[in-house]
């Protein structure tokens, strides 16, 4: 068997929800433990490193603001891949993944907006401006809320899956807009300084806590996402078992 078909088989093995549940039970304690350790290290570094010579203490807001903002976009990208999984491969877990990710993504986007605002007031002198970066992230937040509302509004998971998958893919156009907004338009928000051509423009003193916090937030996302997917599979099982019970009760009468 070629390596490629082996990889595909592994991927389709995961399509079995029972296998996914077994895997989730195995990895969740490790992921949760690792997340706690990373946050302990990240928070320690965040508060022990020096303040910025211009920004002073407020530079520490960066260690939650930037990871939350990265995660808000990564979460939407995970949802977009899941949407492709629903529409193209009809992977049974793809819709579960997209649905479970939406509230988590909304929370991270909310955090990015609030911490950004709390950083903006002392540094820019304003809580909010309607510049391209801030506005496009706000649109992302609204899209998360819209997708959550849509998922709740439709009873039939199969139908909701297709509609929200299409909507997720249409909304994905916003992700490159967020990423490049600081280059395409004249914004109050600063341009990228960590991931950029020519290397990072941040001093290692700030980069270290930032990267540890970014990994911690990423692990938090995966832990919560796997747990939320497991909950969603259970929720669907409960619904189908109740339906089955009602049907067999109807037959007995």
């Amino acid at each position: 068997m070629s390596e490629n078909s082996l990889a595909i088989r592994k991927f389709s093995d995961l399509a079995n929800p029972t296998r996914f549940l077994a895997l989730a039970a195995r990895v969740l304690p490790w992921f949760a433990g690792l997340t706690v350790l990373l946050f302990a290290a990240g928070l320690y570094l965040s508060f022990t490193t020096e303040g910025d010579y211009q920004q002073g203490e407020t530079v520490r807001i960066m260690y939650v603001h930037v990871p939350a903002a990265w995660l808000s976009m990564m979460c939407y990208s995970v949802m977009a891949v899941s949407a492709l999984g629903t529409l193209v491969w009809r992977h049974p877990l793809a819709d579960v993944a997209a649905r479970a990710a939406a509230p988590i993504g909304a929370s991270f986007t909310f955090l990015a907006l609030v911490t950004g605002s709390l950083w903006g007031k002392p540094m820019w002198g304003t809580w909010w401006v309607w510049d391209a970066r801030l506005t496009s992230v706000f649109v992302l937040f609204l899209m998360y809320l819209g997708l959550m509302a849509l998922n709740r509004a439709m009873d039939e998971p199969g139908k909701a899956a297709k509609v929200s998958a299409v909507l997720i893919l249409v909304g994905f156009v916003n992700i490159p807009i967020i990423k490049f907004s600081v280059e395409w338009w004249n914004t109050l928000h600063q341009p990228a300084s960590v991931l950029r051509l020519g290397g990072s423009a941040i001093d290692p003193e700030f980069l270290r806590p930032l990267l540890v916090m970014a990994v911690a937030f990423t692990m938090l996302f995966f832990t919560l996402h796997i747990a939320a997917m497991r909950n969603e599979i259970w929720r669907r099982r409960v619904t189908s078992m109740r339906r089955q019970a009602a049907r067999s009760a109807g037959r007995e009468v």
Partner: protein
Amino acid sequence: MMTHTAYVLASYGIAAVTVLALVLWVWTDGRARRRELQALEAAGIRRRSVQAGDVQ
């Protein structure tokens, strides 16, 4: 006018509350669903795949 430290503490405070709320929601949701499944199984209701002997 808030001091710089107050902005930092407010940011970390809101982040902690949001993350804890999220963790708590996923946790309680999981517990509630697990209880429902256990109650259904206790009532003798099995999933069709399990009934058919396709236990995995």
